[in-house]
């Protein structure tokens, strides 16, 4: 991930060099295309990073890690057969799910920290106007976006006991909501759905430009918590083994 950040930042000067041409070039893009890829002013620091890093790359990283983690949590134990020993221990099923969910949040938090720090350090070498607060705000929003889909994987895994299924459903949900989010500027009725879309909560208020987006963070956290509570209820009724 540090490598991706380094590469993206290394390319920024060459982008800026031809900024005038680039802006002209982008001007010529059809409005629809610009809207689809959420292209803003490519030549400004936040604009470049927002387009390159936070509209696709960072969500991809967080969602990939979170869904893999969530799907492995209980369904992975069942697939491997270790659920037998784990859930026969004198510990509650709810506490197993809770500790796996907390572990996921910690991992996502660590990745967010590393991502924010590497962007912060990286920007010192090249000339990007970017406050560290905004960097952390954007990384936190994106990490919590991952947590939403991670908790979906956790819930589906607790219901089905099948890791691959949990992974498929949660990644599918991420792709579907991403498409709805991306197409929203082009389609009127999709725009009405935006207030319910996790990608909108994470990126709609452009935390990279505007800093902490409290209401977006609250929606992301609340959704993660509610779905995780659902996973806890599901694991209580789960029958382990044949």
């Amino acid at each position: 991930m540090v490598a991706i950040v380094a590469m993206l930042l290394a390319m920024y000067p060459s982008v800026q060099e031809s900024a005038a041409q680039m802006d002209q070039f982008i001007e010529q893009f059809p409005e629809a295309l610009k809207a689809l890829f959420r292209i803003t002013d490519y030549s400004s620091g936040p604009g470049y990073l927002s387009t390159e890093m936070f509209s696709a790359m960072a969500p991809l990283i967080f969602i990939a890690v979170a869904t893999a983690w969530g799907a492995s949590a209980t369904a992975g134990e069942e697939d491997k057969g270790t659920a037998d020993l784990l859930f026969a221990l004198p510990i509650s099923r709810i506490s197993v799910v809770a500790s796996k969910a907390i572990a996921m949040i910690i991992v996502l938090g660590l990745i967010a920290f590393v991502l924010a720090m590497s962007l912060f350090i990286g920007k010192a070498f090249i000339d990007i106007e970017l406050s560290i607060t905004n960097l952390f705000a954007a990384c936190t929003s994106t990490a919590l976006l991952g947590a939403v889909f991670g908790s979906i994987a956790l819930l589906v895994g607790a219901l089905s006991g099948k890791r691959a299924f949990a992974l498929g459903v949660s990644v599918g949900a991420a792709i579907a909501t991403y498409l709805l989010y991306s197409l929203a500027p082009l389609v009127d009725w999709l725009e009405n759905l935006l207030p319910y879309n996790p990608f909108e909560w994470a990126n709609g208020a452009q935390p990279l430009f505007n800093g902490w987006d409290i209401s977006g963070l609250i929606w992301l956290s609340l959704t993660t918590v509610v779905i995780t509570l659902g996973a806890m209820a599901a694991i209580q009724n789960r029958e382990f083994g044949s």
Partner: protein
Amino acid sequence: MAPTEVSPAIEFRSTAKFYRETRGIEDVSLFVNFGEVLGLLGPNGAGKTTAIRVILGLIRPTSGNVLLNGIDISHAKDHVRSNIGYLPGTLALYEYMTGLDFLIFMSRLRKKECAIEIDQLSQRFNFDPSRKIHDLSRGNKQKLGVIQAFMHSPSILVLDEPTSGLDPLMQKEFENLVNEVRAKGAAILLSSHVMSEVENLADRAAILDHGRVLACQTMTELRSRAVRTLELDFPTEVPTSIFASLLGVTNVDRKDNVIFCRVVGDESEVLRVSVQHGLRRVRSNEPNLEEAFLSIVEDNSTSNNFDSDHHA
């Protein structure tokens, strides 16, 4: 409720577990006392593992109850399992850990310090806990399973096919270990389809088939239900007809002066009649549990022919 001193360690009360397509167990009533080994015998698919999973709360019974130490597990906190040691029939471990990592991980989740026991049991079973589980042979993985089941000195042990994969020397060591913890008052439920293992260890055995308990008796009683083959040696030729009419005697055959027959249960009548005819020598093969077991299962399936389509 006040659990009385006589509460069994494990008790099934008319416990049933049905699955959507298959039957698990049906109307199982059994108990295991402290200081006792109960063998759970039966062919594959008889419901042994289902019964065990119900004890550990991995699955919930469709009807009936399971009590641990007099406490109904369906109303109990998860703490009720803190005194159980469990060895699953299909043992799966965290392959990326070392044996020691795994044992420490398990003891932490139990909130019990087991370092000394881990050390003792590892030495006893000649097990190297520093190796990655991924690199262990099947026998060594099974040793690890045994160690994690016994390390916290549980008062109830639930062991599903415990010696599968262990070499004879380690099987012997395992039997010694079971005998020791029984002497200390632990209750042990031992499921197996290896008859000799149950024969060596168990005080009583329950025979399960098609999810039902066909018999639950002391080893002596089970053996007495077994079919034995007698060889009766006479000084002269004796007609087979005098034995064929006796109760419990079948397959009477004669070769020169020797009568061969199969006897179920009491042998005294056969022997009395034989002595009257000048019996010189009798040879009887001591039935092993396998024969006892087969005769009980066979009896049951011939009297329940409508059930035979469930045979897996």
